[in-house]
C-alpha cells in the first residue's frame, strides 16, 4: 500500500512541528519524516493536535536541522513497540530501536504503546512478599510482588545504588530497565551491576541519556512498560526499574510549555498526576498471567515538589533515602499489610512500637538541640535513635533474613528500654523479651 505523503512543514519549534491544513492524519498516529532530496528517514513524529487548519506533531528525534521542505509519510498507526525474546540482554532507545551497536533484532510482534487500563476485575490482590535482605524494607515496609513504589531522594543521594541493590536480589523472570535523562555513567553503572550479578541475560535496557531528544525520553516509559506488560501477559513476573521519573516529568513540563498549555503548579501541566498514574498503574498481578512490579526513582529538592507529591498519591508508598540512610519516618509500603500479618507474631507490633519510640526520639533530638532533653528518659531515647539509624536504617549493610532482622529489633529495644516503656503487649514481652540470645 502506498503511504500518503505531505510535502511541506509550515512551522518548526522546539520538539514540535506543524503542517497546514488537514492531511487526514489521525490523533496519536505516527508519521515518518524524510529528506525530500535523498528520501532518507530523519525521524518519526506523532500527531498530537489536529484541526481543520493545521496539524501538530511531536518529533521523536528533535527538530534541530529540520527543513521546511521535509516530507512527511503517514503510517496510519499509533506508536508501536517491537517485542521479541531476542531483546533480552540488549539495549534500546525510547522508541524501541536498537541502541547498543549490536545486530538488528527481528521482532516477533508489534505492541500497542497506549497502555490501556487493565480491567480492575482481572487484578489479583497482591499477597506475595519480595524479600530484599534490607531490614528497613523487609521489617518496616515489606515490598510486595506487583507493587509500584519509588525511591524518593535528593539528586546527590545513592538512589541508583539502592535501586540496583533491590533489583539484583529481586525474584523476577525479566528485568526491564527504563532510564530517562540518565547520565552516561549511571547507565554504565547499571549495565555493570546487571552483568556482574548475572542478571544481564534476563534484562532489557531502554535508555535515554541526558541531552538526547526529549520526545524519545517522553515515550520511553510507554515503550518499556508495553514490553513488560507483554511478558506479564505471557505469564512472566517482570520487574521494571524506572529512573528517574523526575527527569521524565520535567520533559513533560517542557513539552507542555512548547505547546502553550496553561501550567498548574511550578510550570507542570495540570495533567501531571494523570500522566504519571497512567505509567505507574501498569504495575499489576494479573489473574491467569504474570505480574509487573515497578520500582522507580524520583529525585527531589523537597517532598512538596509537584513530582514527588503527585507520585506519592499514585504509588503504593515510597522509600525515602536521606544521608545515605533509608528513613523510617517518611518511608511507607502500602501493601505491607497484605503480607506482614502471617510472618512472625512480633512483626507488626514491634514495627509499630519501634516507630512510635523513634518519633518520640526525634522530638527528644530536637529538644536536645536547645538543651531541653535533660531528663533520663530523653537520654534513653537519644541513644536509641543513634542505634536505630546505624543498625536499622542502613540499606547497604550485609543482607539479613527477616527472622534475623526481627531479632535485631528486640536487641535494640533491650539495649535501651524497660519492657513497659516499649508499649508492647505483655504477651509479646513474655514471648520475646527474655527468649532472645
Amino acid at each position, binding site marked *: 500500500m502506498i503511504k500518503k505523503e505531505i510535502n511541506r512543514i509550515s512551522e518548526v519549534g522546539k520538539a514540535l512541528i506543524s503542517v497546514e491544513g488537514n492531511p487526514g492524519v489521525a*490523533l496519536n498516529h505516527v508519521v515518518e519524516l524524510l529528506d525530500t532530496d535523498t528520501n532518507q528517514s530523519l525521524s518519526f513524529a506523532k500527531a498530537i493536535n489536529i484541526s481543520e487548519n493545521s496539524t501538530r506533531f511531536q518529533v521523536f528525534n528533535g527538530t534541530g536541522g529540520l527543513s521546511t521542505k521535509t516530507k512527511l509519510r503517514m503510517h496510519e498507526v499509533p506508536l508501536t513497540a517491537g517485542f521479541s525474546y531476542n531483546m533480552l540482554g540488549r539495549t534500546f532507545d525510547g522508541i524501541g530501536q536498537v541502541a547498543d551497536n549490536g545486530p538488528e533484532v527481528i521482532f516477533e510482534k508489534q505492541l500497542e504503546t497506549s497502555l490501556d487500563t487493565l*480491567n480492575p*476485575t482481572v487484578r489479583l490482590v497482591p499477597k506475595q512478599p519480595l524479600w530484599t535482605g534490607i531490614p528497613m524494607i523487609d521489617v518496616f515496609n515489606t515490598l510486595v510482588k506487583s507493587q509500584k513504589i519509588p525511591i524518593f531522594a535528593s539528586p546527590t543521594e545513592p538512589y541508583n545504588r539502592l535501586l540496583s541493590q533491590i533489583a539484583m536480589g529481586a525474584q523476577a523472570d525479566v528485568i526491564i530497565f527504563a532510564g530517562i535523562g540518565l547520565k552516561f555513567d549511571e547507565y554504565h553503572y547499571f549495565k555493570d551491576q546487571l552483568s556482574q550479578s548475572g542478571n544481564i541475560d534476563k534484562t532489557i535496557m531502554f535508555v535515554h541519556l541526558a541531552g538526547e531528544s526529549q520526545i524519545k525520553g517522553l515515550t520511553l516509559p510507554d515503550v518499556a512498560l508495553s514490553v513488560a506488560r507483554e511478558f506479564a501477559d505471557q505469564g512472566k513476573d517482570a520487574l521494571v526499574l524506572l529512573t528517574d521519573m523526575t527527569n521524565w516529568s520535567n520533559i513533560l513540563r517542557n513539552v507542555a510549555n512548547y505547546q502553550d498549555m496553561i501550567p498548574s503548579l511550578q510550570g507542570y501541566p495540570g495533567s501531571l498526576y494523570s500522566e504519571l498514574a497512567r505509567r505507574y498503574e501498569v504495575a499489576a498481578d*494479573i489473574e491467569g498471567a504474570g505480574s509487573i512490579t515497578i520500582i522507580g526513582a524520583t529525585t527531589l529538592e523537597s517532598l512538596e515538589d509537584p513530582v514527588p507529591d503527585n507520585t506519592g498519591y499514585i504509588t503504593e508508598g515510597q522509600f525515602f533515602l536521606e544521608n545515605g540512610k533509608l528513613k523510617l519516618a517518611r518511608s511507607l509500603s502500602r501493601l505491607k499489610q497484605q503480607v506482614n*500479618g502471617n510472618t512472625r507474631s512480633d512483626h507488626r507490633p514491634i514495627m509499630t512500637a519501634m516507630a512510635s519510640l523513634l*518519633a518520640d526520639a526525634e522530638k527528644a533530638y530536637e529538644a536536645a538541640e536547645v538543651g531541653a532533653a535533660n531528663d533520663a528518659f530523653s537520654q534513653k531515647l537519644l541513644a536509641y535513635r543513634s542505634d536505630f539509624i546505624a543498625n536499622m536504617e542502613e540499606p547497604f549493610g550485609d543482607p539479613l533474613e527477616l527472622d534475623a532482622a526481627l531479632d535485631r529489633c528486640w536487641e535494640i529495644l533491650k539495649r535501651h528500654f*524497660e519492657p*513497659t516503656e516499649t*508499649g508492647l503487649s505483655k504477651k509479646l514481652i513474655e514471648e520475646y523479651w527474655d527468649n532472645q540470645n
Partner: protein
Amino acid sequence: MNIRNKERTGNLISIQDSLVKVRFKDDVIMGETAEISVEGKLLQGEVLQISPDFKNPGCGIAEMQVFEDLTGARIGDSVEFKGTPLSVLVGPGLLTSIWDGLQNPLYKLSEQDPYLRPGMHAPALDETKLWDFTPAVSVGDVLKGGDTIGSVPEGHFEHKILVPFGIKKCTVNEIIGQKSVNITEVVAIVTDENNQKQELKLAFRHPVKQPIPFKERSIPRKTISTGVRVIDLLAPVSYGGTVGNPGPFGAGKTVMQHTLCKYAIADVIIMAACGERAGEAVEVFKDFAELEDPSTGESLMNRMCIFGNTSSMPVAAREASVFIALTVGEYYRYQGYNVILLADSTSRWAQALRERSGRQGDIPGPEAFPMDIPDQIKGMYQRAGADSGSGGSLTFIGTVSPAGGNFQEPVTQATMDATGGFWGLSQDRADAKKYPAIDPLAYTTSVYDSFIPWKDREQILSTLHEANGIDQTISTIGLKKVPIEKYILFQKGQTIDFCVLQQNAFHDLDACTRPERLNVINEAVQKLINSEIAIPDPNMDDDELKEVIRAKFDELRQWWRDWNMSAETEEQIAALPSHIDQFVFEGEPVL
C-alpha cells in the same frame, strides 16, 4: 430537555486530547451527550460549550469532552447528538455491582478483553436477571414522578419501583400483576402530563446533574457508629452529614476509607474510586466480599456498589463518576435507606475539571483550578442530606488530597467551607505511626452530635490541648522545669492519645469500637481526667518523681492497650473503669 426523534449529527473539526470541536447544522443542546464514530468505535462525550461558526453561516461549533481515548480520531469523523444529558440507570441490581466511571460493569467488560479498550460498553445492569415484581397501584391511579408503582426484593431490601422523576403527573393505563420480570420488560403503561404514553420498567435513567429530590429534607441528627474511636468521640458524623477528609499522601486516607467500608453502620455503601489506585478498589471488592456486614451478617459486598474510575482511566470520566455515584445514593435515600457515599478522591475530581478548563483556555483561578471550583464543591456536598419524608439519608464523606499536604490549597479550603465535619490527617502523626492520624487538635471539627455528652467531648479536647501545650514546653525548656502537676496532665493526655485515639485498623477486636464500649471508655477517660493521681512516695525529688510517674503511666498504657486487644466479655469490659479507679487511688495524692 426534549428527547428528539430526528437524528442530529455533526463532524469533528478539531481534536486535542479529550477535547473536540464539532461543526453542526441543526441545533445542539448544552450538556447533551453525543457519540463520536472513530475507526468503527462509538465513543461517548458531552457538550460543554456552543459557539457560532463565523466561516460557515448556518452552522455552529459545539465543544465537547470525550470520556474515552480518542486515538485514531480524524477531522471529519461523524458525531451523533443524543438529546439527553449524561444519566445513570437506576433500578434493582445496583447493589454488589462494580462499574467503571460511566457505569459499564467491569466484570462484563472483562469477558470481552482483560484491558479496557476505547468504545467497549456493556449494559449497566443485568438485563436477564428476573425480579419478583409485586404491583402497588391499579389502573386509573394518578401518580407523579417518584411515586411507587410496585416493588421487588433485592437481597434483604425491598426495592421500590418508582415512576421516573422526569414525569410530573401521570395516569396508570396498564399494570402487570405479580410476576417475575427482567429490567427490560414493561411493567406499566402510563399517560403523562403531555398525554404521551410512557412505558415503565423496573429501571430508568436519571440525569446525573439533576439531584433526585428529597421527600422532606431534614437536619442530620442521628450519629453514625463508624467504629473509629477518634471520630465517634470527637469528630462524629450523622446520617445525612458531610465530611471532608484531607491528608497528605501516606497519612492513612485509604485505610480510613476501608475501615469505614467495613465497620460503618449503614444500609448501603457506595464507593466512588475517583482517580485513585485501582488496587485499592480491587481489595474492596475481592477481599471485603468475604467480610460480614456488621448489621446483617451477610457478605459486606451485598450492601455495596463501586464506581471505579481509577487513576489511569480517562480523566474526563472522573467528573461523571462522582455525579453518577451521588445520583445512585440519592435514589436509595429516596427509597428510605441510609446510604454512605465514600468519594476518594474529590481532589482528583477537581483536577479533572482543572485539566479540562486548562484545555478550554479558561482564565485560571488559584493554582490553575477553575474560578468557580468552590461553588462546584459546595454544590456537590449539598446533594447529601437526611430525608425525614423517606426515612433515608445520604452521607457524603469525601477525601481530599491536598498538593504538598498543604491544607491552604483551594480544594481543601472549599471543602472545609462546604462540609459539616472535617477529619484532618496529620503528617506528624502518620510519621510517628499514630493511626488513625486524625489530629483532634488541628483541622478537625464536627457540627454533629457525638455518642458522648457534649461536655465530655469538650473535656477530652481541652485535656488534649493542655497536654499538647505542655509537650511543647517540654520540648523547648526541658522536662526539669515542668511542674509535677503539669507533668501528670501531660501523661494523662498521652494516655488518652495512645489508648483511645490510636486504634489498630488491622486488629480484629481493636479495629471497631461500638457505642456501648465507647461509653465505657469515656467513663474511664473522664475518671482519669478528673481524678488526682496518687504516687507511692511523695518525698522523692522532682526528677525521681517524674520517672516514677512515667513508669506508672507506662504500665497503665500497656494494661489499657492489652484491654483494647482482648476485652470481650461484659466483665472484661467493665474492668477498665475499675482499673482506672485503682490506678488513681493507689497511695497518697500528690498534691
